[in-house]
């Protein structure tokens, strides 16, 4: 099925995503005690394989937190960090409350919690804007190359891929916030965006 979003819908989707990630950045800044710089959002329709290429070269190690969501849109929200900076992030988040010898032991847990706070803030902003609640299951941690991080999807399936790059100002740690929307929820996406644009909801 060809996926068609017109320019106005893509613009609306970018702005919704931008607002959501802005909220997420505020939550992350509070957690990491740092300013979070954001790139402009990108909205594309890709195969899963192409989406993985956008995130980085195959084989490059990454850490990712995946937050599945279901509702008017279905998909995954992802927070992706480069693997080699992970302990630094854990150290910042845990602060003085976790003994330094315990930091490695809680690495996955700490990164999952960063993802939990950031991605939930983003999803809550989307929920507010779209006027629909999303059902969330607990976030999942993953490590590996970009294909692994994107989860067990069929590589040639099409997805709506929204991504934004962020950078922590002081530590210069970079990463991505990514939303992968299943195309099965495309009609819901069009309806939600049209409603936001003030168009008749059955317009296409």
């Amino acid at each position, binding site marked *: 099925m060809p996926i068609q979003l017109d320019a106005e819908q893509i613009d609306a989707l970018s702005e919704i995503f931008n607002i959501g990630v802005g909220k997420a950045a505020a939550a992350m800044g509070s957690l990491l005690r740092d300013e979070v710089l954001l790139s402009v959002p990108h909205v594309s329709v890709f195969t899963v394989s192409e989406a993985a290429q956008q995130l980085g070269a195959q084989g490059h190690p990454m850490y990712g937190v995946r937050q599945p969501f279901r509702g008017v849109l279905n998909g995954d929200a992802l927070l992706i960090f480069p693997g080699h900076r992970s302990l630094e992030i854990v150290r910042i988040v845990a602060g003085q*409350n976790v003994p330094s010898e315990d930091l490695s032991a809680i690495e996955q847990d*700490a990164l999952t919690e960063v993802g939990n706070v950031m991605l939930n803030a983003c999803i809550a902003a989307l929920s507010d804007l779209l006027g629909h609640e999303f059902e969330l299951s607990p976030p999942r941690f993953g490590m590996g190359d970009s294909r692994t991080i994107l989860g067990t999807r069929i590589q040639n399936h099409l997805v709506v891929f929204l991504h934004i790059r962020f950078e922590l100002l002081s530590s210069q740690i970079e990463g991505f916030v990514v939303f992968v929307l299943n195309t099965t929820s495309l009609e819901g996406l069009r309806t939600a965006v049209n409603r936001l644009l003030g168009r008749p909801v059955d317009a296409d």
Partner: protein
Amino acid sequence: MSLRLLIVDDSRMSRLILQGLVQQAHPDWTIVHASSGEEALQLARENPVDLVSMDFNMHGMNGLDAALALRQLLPRVPIAILTANVQNAVQERIEEAGMVFIAKPITAQAAQQLIALAGA
């Protein structure tokens, strides 16, 4: 007054951060941890607590269901749902159930909100 606080969260780091912040203000408090709603209920049956901080999105029983079950066991104990799930609908559901909603991330301010529930 020394109180017994139950922190329920599937994130160990979150439990440790909240414990650290609470104990900065109240080093005499006893803090017990549970990593699931089911474990929290078991602990509360064995040793009653004075205050509960409960995560919302957890594997198994979700935080609101666990909090409602805890309320049956400990009807006078204040329960806060401390969660990253900050959707308005979720906050409304928590408040309609008579629980206190506190948004993550866990900060000194969030810890103070929790401590205040105990009148401490």
